[in-house]
């Protein structure tokens, strides 16, 4: 099932390494990602992909790159769509 979610990451998030890590993980998991907002303490990312892989992306980014410390992950909205297996 394809899903679209917007996820907010908060913590110590230097923008460059966090964005690079997000792009790398999104490419690996075939998840479409769009950075909606970002500063040194917060990143909001919209994700579209298979639900299981979107969850895998969230989990990967909750661990973050070495330069970052993610303190909280929160879903802001969810929109599920059908059928892509």
């Amino acid at each position, binding site marked *: 099932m394809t899903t679209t979610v917007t996820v907010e990451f908060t913590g110590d998030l230097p923008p460059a390494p966090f964005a690079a890590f997000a792009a790398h993980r999104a*490419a*690996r*998991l*075939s998840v479409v990602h769009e950075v909606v907002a970002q500063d040194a303490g917060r990143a909001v990312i919209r994700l579209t992909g*298979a639900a*299981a*892989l979107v969850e*895998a992306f969230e989990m*990967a980014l909750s*661990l973050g790159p070495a330069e970052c410390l993610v303190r909280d992950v929160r879903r802001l909205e969810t929109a599920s769509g059908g059928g892509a*297996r």
Partner: protein
Amino acid sequence: MSGWTPVALAADLPPGTVAGVVLRSEEIVLWRDGAGPPHAWKDRCPHRGMKLSFGFVRRDRLVCLYHGWEYGADTRCALIPAHPDLDVPETIRATPWQVAETGGLLWVGSRDAGQPPDLPEAMPLRSLFLDAPLDTARTRLRSGGLPGLGEVDLIGDGPLLRFAQGGHLFAVGGHEIGPAACALHLTSDGTAAARAALVPATAALRREVRAQSRGAAA
């Protein structure tokens, strides 16, 4: 890294098994599927970074020990057990090295390594892990061969040292694990006597190379 480097005895990786090696601080997993060809990948699961060398082979796939993600010989993730119905995207892949099996050894190469060496079959003897730089071990072998086996006649130099000694023909490949650690992989021309001769010789070689390495560092 460029070129090809011997990293293990081929006989030490039977079909259906997994082994980890370190080449100049790069961690590499070696594994064979049931059909026998070797595979060499970066030793990290793309999922959570677990060492794939901790995993196991099932149905000709390398399975990560952590969450059971399964990778086929083409490096693609074929199954995520937590989501068995998921059509796993082809972007989830292990990172391959080039690998070749020749001369009784497993060799890994960089992407631009070109053709691997073409060597005759050889009898595997043993791998020897030393707390010394690879150059120290190779210099020792070039000058005196294996301790206690008499005069040495150096036949070939390069990634593989080949020498005749004590009536046997030895070939020794080596790889650098780190600045002060290396592994030597010894093969011979196939006589059982060479294997018997090797036991005391390798123990003495280990002592000599370690002493030389410590002397150089002091």
